[in-house]
């Protein structure tokens, strides 16, 4: 009970969570929220400033920017969730393996973590997208290829910590198998840390997707994505300020929401990490 109360009392969690909830709702109910089609072009309406007909104005093809931003939320959140799922699964799996079994398994996995850790995420992602061809799936794989290491590192530490606990020893003495101990004892202990890591990295994942799409090697048209919208808007920076401004504000507020939520959750779930 006091846990939920501390969640509700934390301002960062309330504000961040609110932003994330609104964005998630927009992504899910995009067809109902969007006022126009996100792809239909209408040259008569090209580059119109914000009005009651077009809340955020129109782009150079006369498409409604508000509707494109709403659908873009779908792309962004889905990609970020995909990265969290793939990187989280691989990282948790390898980190647990290394931390639990130790020895050569651990040394090998630690080597892999070090390699993934040193290679800058954006460079690795660019290299992989070149091989895989641009697209949403490629982005998820390309970013996860470097990011699983964060999860593996946290997981490895968590498993190390709990491996030596008395209740694990007790479970072993009682004849519990490795799989049972991992699933029922060690993994549940690590859940808070993994949740904190997912939320704190969500914002960066959204930014990375937007970066790749901005460079033209991310999500490909006609799928609307915030990065691609801004890349196109750059060409009209001197004629249509709204085109470059509003989609970027939505993108930044989304990232801010995830960052606040992540910071808040970290404070509540692990007070000792607060000052790190």
């Amino acid at each position, binding site marked *: 009970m006091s846990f939920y109360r501390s969640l509700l009392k934390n301002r960062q969690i309330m504000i961040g969570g609110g932003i994330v909830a609104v964005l998630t709702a927009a992504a899910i109910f995009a067809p109902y929220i969007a006022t126009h089609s996100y792809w239909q072009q209408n040259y008569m309406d090209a580059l119109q400033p914000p009005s009651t007909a077009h809340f955020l104005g129109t782009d150079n093809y006369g498409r409604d920017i508000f509707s494109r931003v709403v659908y873009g939320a779908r792309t962004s959140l889905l990609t970020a969730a995909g990265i969290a799922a793939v990187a989280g699964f691989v990282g948790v799996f390898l980190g647990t393996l290394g931390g639990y079994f130790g020895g050569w398994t651990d040394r090998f996995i630690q080597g892999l973590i070090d390699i993934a850790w*040193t290679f800058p995420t*954006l460079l690795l992602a660019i290299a992989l997208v070149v091989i895989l061809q641009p697209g949403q799936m490629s982005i998820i794989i390309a970013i996860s290829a470097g990011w699983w290491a964060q999860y593996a590192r946290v997981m490895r530490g968590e498993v190390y910590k709990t491996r030596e606990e008395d209740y694990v020893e007790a479970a072993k003495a009682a004849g519990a198998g490795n799989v049972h101990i991992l699933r029922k004892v060690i993994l549940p202990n690590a859940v808070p840390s993994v949740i904190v890591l997912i939320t704190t990295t969500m914002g960066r994942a959204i930014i990375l997707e937007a970066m790749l799409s901005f460079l033209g090697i991310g999500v490909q048209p006609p799928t609307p994505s915030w990065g691609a919208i801004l890349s196109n808007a750059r060409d009209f920076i001197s004629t249509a300020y709204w085109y470059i401004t509003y989609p970027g504000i939505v993108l*930044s507020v989304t990232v801010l929401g995830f960052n606040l939520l992540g910071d808040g959750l970290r404070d509540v779930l692990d007070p000792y990490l607060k000052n790190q």
Partner: protein
Amino acid sequence: MGLLNYVARRVLFTIPLLIVISIFVFSLIHLAPGDPVSLLVNPRLGEEAREQKRKELGLDKPLPIQYLQFMKDLITGRLGKSYYAEKKISAMLAARLPNTLALTGLGLAFSYVIAIPAGVVAALNRGKFLDYASMSVALIGLAMPQFWLGLILMLVFSVHFDLLPVAGVGSFQHLILPSITLGAYGAALTARITRSSMLEVLHKDYIRTARAKGLRERIVCYKHALRNALIPIISLLGMRIGWLVGGAVMVEVVFTRPGIGRLMVNSIHRRDYLVVQIIILMLAISVILGNLLADILNSLTDPQIRYN
């Protein structure tokens, strides 16, 4: 003894890392879709001409031989010609490298110049207006994607007020907005770390002792506290190099600066994979060596690292 041992181990670890990464980057060109040769030869000339070109570029040899040749060329600095531009790659890089170095250098300097005073002021005014103000700015800085911050700065200072050039290179004015853009994320992060590191140090016993001795508050803060608080900030320098390199790519594209990063992105779109390969490898190596250097510097300031 401990220090030499640590440095030796750290250097030894870097070598396999460099080999793994060079093999990965080398395989890029073979894993990338499409035959690189077919882009270079007039399609009407047929298979024979393509075969000729392949031989010319050494693409007909077995992969391990090609890899060794690639590495030999890299080390001796004979990078070959760009498939697309028909220019020597080494000349293309040399023309752009100064622009990228100026940008990253100034960006890094900017992030520290802003962040450290902001973090110190926030820590000294904990819970007061200045603390909230600087930490709110930092939060916003962390949430704004670099490339969008660059576009907004461009919109305000170049398009609207016409104070600074929109894009390109040539003068110091051209560097101002790109460096701010590049340094902003690092500044936000460093300010937060400076603040928490300062707060931690201010509670240490030696600070209480310094105060009890009757030293003036200013000397306690700047001479005793800040000096110790800087250690974790310096130790993050290694990580910063990776972000700077990635950030430079984005900033160069936003401000159409002729630098290494923009050349890489343009080469991807032209399928000029040899140039892409060389740049990715170059940037990766500089990040790895930067990390190595930062780790060694850290072990000098903090002996504990050596024993972990």
